[in-house]
């Protein structure tokens, strides 16, 4: 038995090393988020020294600076982070559960459903505020249930789910286009928000529903990390390991949809964030632990950076959705090529 002891220690050490690397990577990602947050707050059309930024944040009133930082930049930055985390976490949950990085909520109609409900509420029913979010979540859940139900035939085949989702998404996109086109007084800015997503005109009051969704749904999702990891191995293997596949799937879907729909109701469907956060996180984390938190952080980074680039670094001012959509395309294509070539999954 003494021969057995050293090899067990090797196992333990290798596991601890993996956990250590994971912690380091998480810390790194958090640092990047904070850094971007700081930059967004101080470097804009005008430069605000970090010291002044901090003073505004703790509540001091500096005329001029307060407005810029607290009213313009802060809500944008906070919303970007929260929405980014929601999209990232929701997106990766779907991708891991369906074992295909191309099976993202953007693609299978969840975002379109939430967007359609939000557009409908705002344009046709003239609603504002939290009611829009609630409607969007309800719509997102309905779409998820519909897609799930329509693809159910003696069990869920991931392929069928994705295809049904694509069909649903196309239908809802046309609904959005119709509603937007039949409201001629609608400004182009608003149309852009609902077609590709933007954080323009952000207000801190909008951050609350996002925060709640993140804590509630995100927390629930994180509690299922182990089950999600088992699902990666295939439905059969997961079931063999004792995971209640159908129930777990449903829970994951509810949580993911809750987060994504809430975010969509506030910012519109920011293109590609849900799609890309997971794969990017996977390349960073590289087999060292769970993808959930890293994806949330990557999502936040994408939205923060995308908005910054769109507002300040391009010849014209673009909403964040256009930036992530247009700049995300090459990476997306690279991803598809890689996935198809290796037949891999997240």
């Amino acid at each position, binding site marked *: 038995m003494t021969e057995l002891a050293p090899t067990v220690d090797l196992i333990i050490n290798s596991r601890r090393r993996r956990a250590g690397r994971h912690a380091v990577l998480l810390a790194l990602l958090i640092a990047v988020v904070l850094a971007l947050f700081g930059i967004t707050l101080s470097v804009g059309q005008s430069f605000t020294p970090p010291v002044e930024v901090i003073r505004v944040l703790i509540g001091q009133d500096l005329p001029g600076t307060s407005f810029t930082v607290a009213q313009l930049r802060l809500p944008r930055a906070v919303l970007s982070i929260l929405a980014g985390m929601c999209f990232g976490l929701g997106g990766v949950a779907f991708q891991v559960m369906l074992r295909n990085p191309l*099976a993202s909520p953007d693609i299978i109609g969840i975002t379109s459903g939430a967007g359609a409900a939000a557009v409908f509420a705002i344009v046709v029913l003239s609603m504002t505020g939290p009611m829009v979010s609630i409607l969007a979540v309800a719509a997102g859940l309905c779409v998820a249930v519909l897609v799930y139900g329509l693809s159910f035939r003696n069990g869920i085949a991931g*392929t069928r789910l994705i295809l049904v989702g694509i*069909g649903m998404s196309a239908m809802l996109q046309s609904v959005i286009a119709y509603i937007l086109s039949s409201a001629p007084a609608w400004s*182009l800015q608003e149309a852009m928000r609902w077609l590709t997503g933007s954080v323009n005109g952000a207000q801190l009051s909008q951050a609350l529903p996002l925060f709640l969704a993140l804590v509630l749904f995100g927390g629930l999702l994180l509690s299922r990390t182990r089950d999600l990891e088992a699902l990666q191995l295939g439905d059969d293997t997961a079931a063999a390991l004792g995971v209640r596949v159908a129930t777990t799937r449903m829970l994951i879907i509810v949580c993911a949809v809750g987060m994504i729909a809430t975010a969509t109701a506030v910012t519109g469907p920011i293109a590609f964030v849900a799609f890309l956060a997971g794969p990017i996180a996977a390349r960073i984390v590289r087999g060292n632990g769970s993808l959930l938190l890293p994806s949330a952080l990557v999502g936040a980074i994408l939205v923060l950076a995308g908005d910054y680039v769109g507002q300040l670094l391009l010849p014209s001012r673009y909403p964040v959705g256009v930036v992530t959509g247009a700049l995300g*395309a090459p990476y997306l294509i690279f991803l*598809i090529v890689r996935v*198809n070539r290796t*037949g891999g999954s997240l």
Partner: protein
Amino acid sequence: MTGIHETSDRRWVSAARSNRVRSLWFAGLIVVLALLLALSVTIGTRNVDWSDISAALGGMQDTIGQAAIALRIPRTVLALLAGASLGLAGAIMQGVTRNPLADPGILGVNMGASLAVVTGVAWFGMSSAHAYIWTAIAGAGCTAVFVYTIGSLGRGGATPLKLALAGAATSIALASLAIAVVLPRGDIAGGIQSWQIGGVGGATYGRIVPVMPFLAAGFAISLLSARKLNSLALGDELAAGLGERVAVARAIASLGAILLCGATTAVCGPISFLGLVVPHLCRTLIGVDYRWLLPFSAVGGAGLLLGADILGRIVARPGEIDVGIVTALIGAPFFIWIVRRQRVREL
């Protein structure tokens, strides 16, 4: 050995009957199409009577009623041509990719054509009809090649799922790029909607005529590819074994489809799902022989688009719903239904 003769006789008889059935169906379709043509001319936001109709068809535009009809005729013609093109293109795409879920919209081809035109207008100040058409065709072609290449990498080649995903992802990317191109240009941004959703409203002969040679070429190439598509349906290896040059066949057939899609999108904007639904419906009527399926898809497509346009005009009086939206709203559930019927393997 008498057994074999009997079987072959029976097969001959059943084939002849089948052809007769198909011809009957075809005749039926033509009748339906004629009816729809008539409906399209008569129905609209303004009610007109028979005298106006016959006068307008004769070319007179004196009364308001006749003028209204005079507007509807080119619209009807465009719907006819666009529907036939898209139905035919869809059938070809399904044949070339051996994928029951192929459609110019799903594969992003229409979006590619749109983006090309939008870019041409915004960056190069394009304005001539010919420029539009050539650009749209180029965009459609590049996107088709791109999506197919990506979708066929890896194990299993171009499975329906991989193609659909590649197409969906590409569509999103292209739509974002289109918005990125248009946004800074306040002058053309108002027209953005027409490049995201297609329609046949506001059609004039001035817009239809330039595109006719392209459509004619597309039709010709497509209809002549019927035999090749039949061979391709057996699978690449078998088709090659039967003497078909697979790559060439695919390229030629695709060329036909791309000409049709590109030209149609240049005039109408992107219309999705028609190319998906029509071949499936036709297949249930007359089977999988492309020599029949292609003409059927053309006629069926024309009818369906006309029907969708008429529906859009009736349902939303006094306004109208663009045909691109109607086809999406009807076509998407159909797409889902097709997916449910297929047996798919676990990912």
